[in-house]
């Protein structure tokens, strides 16, 4: 047996064309031309009809370079299992609900449509575009994954600050200090490590370790196992870094099924500042932001993906805290901002939309209302030049082509924002009621109030109709629990007990008289 083993290995490595898990190039062509050409193109160059609308762009197979793989940095070809996972997807990618493909891209998981054989055939066909053979080196070993411990996280933090923070930011939010492009000329951004669902294949410690060890070919993310690199880390150090990165996940930023923002009632003045401890009392609800693709000019390549919202109110006012990760602080005219933005820099902004009237049943059209159902929009923008000051506007809209501005001071609307380390926080505040109930939304406790959001990243050339947005969600000013909520159950309990007692007594009386008669 021992004698045959090297011979077998030699045979396997010398015959790359027959070892590939039975994929047929001919059959793969059929599947590819039905399913894959739309993005990856007929010649595999990543230039299908959809390609110019996608960020990141579809993989160009003719180069034979794959960003995601588990074979070592000095092995160009991904393993068969890597191709399977890229094509079929996997629930372990832990992405947006219902999505099993590559997170943050438009590549879905195909397991419900393609069989294992289809996927193997397609693999054989796409490898043909670059004449790729079988990988000569096996996938890196992830069997030694350590348990996540406090000490491990501490050690990983030091390594992170030393090696990773330069691009991924001090807090791991990928906030830009450098302009990065991949080998195909497409703009790339360091991963925001606090959003586990945005990692291409999930944030499992093993997958993070694989990324750190292999790197991302074609990008500035290097292999930290490359002995020729001055950034090299030992195996233990790479595991520690992976454990630390995994611990950065902030689940509260991931939207859930809940669409209700619960505004909490507090006593005393409402917070004016974004870092006021009063915000700790507010529960946070997060929503997905998607680009405006409904009306001209449509927007397809967003940079912002979620917004988290909290709200508090007192007897006079309501205050809303909007928080969203934005890799760039967009200051028009600022040399650094222009360098990172790769184009014109406009201001950043956020808007909150309300129906003007809270009639039951019908809501305004979620894209800035309609003629029958107008909306109020509270619109905050960052400064247009250093020292110019932030702006807040009040819009009355009856559709996206029909919006009038009004003086926000006339209704006491205030807004102020602070950018820190890759995150914008903006507070908006207004009185619960205004003089003109015809023109302005009037807030009251216990009502489900429709609310929608929009945001702009000026460094992503977002301006006017080019922005990200949400559909209608709800805001509820949660009233203090009334004492009747506790009184009625006690009353009902006592009534039942009373009936029981009367029944029991009458039954005993009947029995006693019955016995007396006997």
């Amino acid at each position: 047996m021992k004698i045959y083993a090297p011979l077998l290995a030699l045979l396997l490595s010398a015959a790359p064309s027959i070892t590939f898990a039975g994929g047929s190039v001919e059959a793969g062509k059929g599947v590819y031309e039905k399913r894959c050409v739309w993005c990856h193109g007929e010649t595999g160059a990543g230039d299908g009809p959809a390609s110019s609308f996608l960020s990141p762009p579809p993989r160009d197979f003719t180069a034979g370079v794959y960003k995601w793989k588990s074979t070592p940095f000095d092995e160009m070809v991904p393993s068969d299992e890597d191709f399977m996972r890229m094509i079929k997807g996997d629930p372990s990618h832990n992405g947006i609900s219902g999505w099993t493909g590559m997170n943050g891209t438009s590549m879905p998981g195909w397991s419900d449509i393609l069989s294992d054989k289809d996927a193997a055939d397609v693999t054989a066909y796409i490898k043909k575009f670059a004449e790729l053979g079988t990988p000569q080196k096996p996938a890196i070993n992830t069997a030694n994954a350590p348990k996540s411990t406090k000490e491990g996280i501490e050690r990983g933090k030091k390594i992170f600050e030393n090696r990773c923070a330069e691009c991924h930011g001090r807090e791991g939010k990928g906030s830009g200090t450098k302009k990065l492009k991949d080998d195909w000329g497409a703009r790339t951004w360091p991963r925001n490590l606090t959003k586990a669902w945005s990692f291409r294949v999930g944030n499992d410690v093993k997958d993070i370790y694989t990324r750190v060890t292999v790197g991302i070919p074609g990008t500035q993310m290097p292999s930290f196992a490359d002995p020729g690199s001055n950034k090299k880390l030992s195996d233990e150090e790479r595991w520690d870094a992976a454990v630390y990165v995994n611990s950065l996940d902030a689940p509260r930023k991931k939207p859930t099924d809940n669409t209700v923002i619960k505004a909490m009632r507090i006593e005393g003045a409402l917070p004016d500042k974004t870092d006021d401890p009063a915000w700790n009392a507010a529960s946070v609800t997060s929503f997905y932001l998607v680009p405006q693709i409904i009306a001209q000019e449509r927007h397809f390549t967003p940079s912002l993906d979620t917004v988290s919202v909290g709200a508090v109110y007192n007897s006079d006012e309501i205050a809303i805290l909007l928080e969203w990760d934005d890799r760039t602080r967009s200051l028009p005219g600022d040399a650094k901002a222009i360098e990172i933005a790769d184009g014109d820099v406009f201001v950043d902004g956020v808007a909150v939309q309300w129906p003007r009237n809270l009639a039951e049943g019908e809501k305004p059209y979620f894209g800035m209302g309609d003629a029958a159902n107008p909306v109020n929009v509270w619109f905050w923008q960052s400064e247009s030049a250093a020292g110019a000051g932030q702006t807040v506007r009040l819009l009355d809209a009856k559709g996206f082509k029909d919006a009038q501005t009004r003086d926000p001071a006339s209704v006491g609307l205030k807004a102020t924002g602070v950018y820190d380390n890759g995150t914008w926080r903006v507070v908006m505040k207004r009185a619960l009621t205004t003089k003109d109930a015809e023109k302005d939304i009037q807030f009251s406790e216990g009502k489900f109030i429709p609310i929608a959001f929009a945001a702009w990243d000026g460094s992503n050339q977002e301006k006017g109709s080019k922005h990200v947005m949400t559909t209608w969600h709800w805001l509820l000013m949660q009233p203090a629990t009334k004492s009747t909520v506790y009184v009625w159950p006690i009353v009902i309990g006592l009534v039942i007990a009373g009936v029981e007692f009367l029944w029991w007594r009458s039954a005993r009386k009947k029995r006693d008289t019955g016995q007396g008669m006997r």
Partner: protein
Amino acid sequence: MKKPDGANPAKLLWFVVIVFIAYVIFKSPGWFMNKPIPGSLIMMYMFFAVVAALLVMTSTDESTQGLFAPIKALVEDPSKKIIRNAVFVIAPIVGALITYNQIKPGFDAPVELRATHPAPPTIMKAYDKTFNLATLENPFRKLQTENPEKFKEAVKEGGAVYFKNCFFCHGDKLDGKGHFAQGFNPLPLPFQGKDTIAQLQESFVFWRISTGGPGLPKEATPWLSAMPVWHTFLSEDEVWKAILFIYDYTDNAPRSWVSANSKKDG
């Protein structure tokens, strides 16, 4: 002394089991399919289930006695003192808890009912024209039999329209799970399967595409749909070709009274 006939608790047990099964059935969509029936509806259904069970089980005097005798016995029979005391303590507590659950303030989003396939109008306006939806047909559909090569070409052109305009929401796999789908409510319609576009005529699909969300009737909550008004973006031919594509890709055929009749004739 002979026990009353109905002291046998079987009948009461049946009643409890039936009501419990009804509860499990109403709850199971939420437990197993993640599509819960709203609590207020479950309350209503349970009320009808209890009333129906009572009506059937009290249809004769005999069965009525059978149902209530165990309860009567519980109160009146001194030998059941321990059970009785337990029931007498538990019943008021359960009653109080149910009351609390009913009146405590709820913070779940209001349920919004919406018609997925609203009745189409007889005529619609787009491209500065009026279309009669009863007679409207896909001008490229006849190529399928007359000129298969040209048909294939039209399908491919429709695919390019789809992948430049629609797939962001309706998905790479036409499964309604495009990479921006999660931001919308209602979710984009899937075209896979036999229960979506296979149930619709092409004229209906043309109406839904060309007039978009704002063209929906009120019962379909037009204010929530993110479907753009496509006649402002795409030509008539592009819309018809995209329709060809979505049927072809999903191996579906449009519903059509005309073709069914002509097949019979032919």
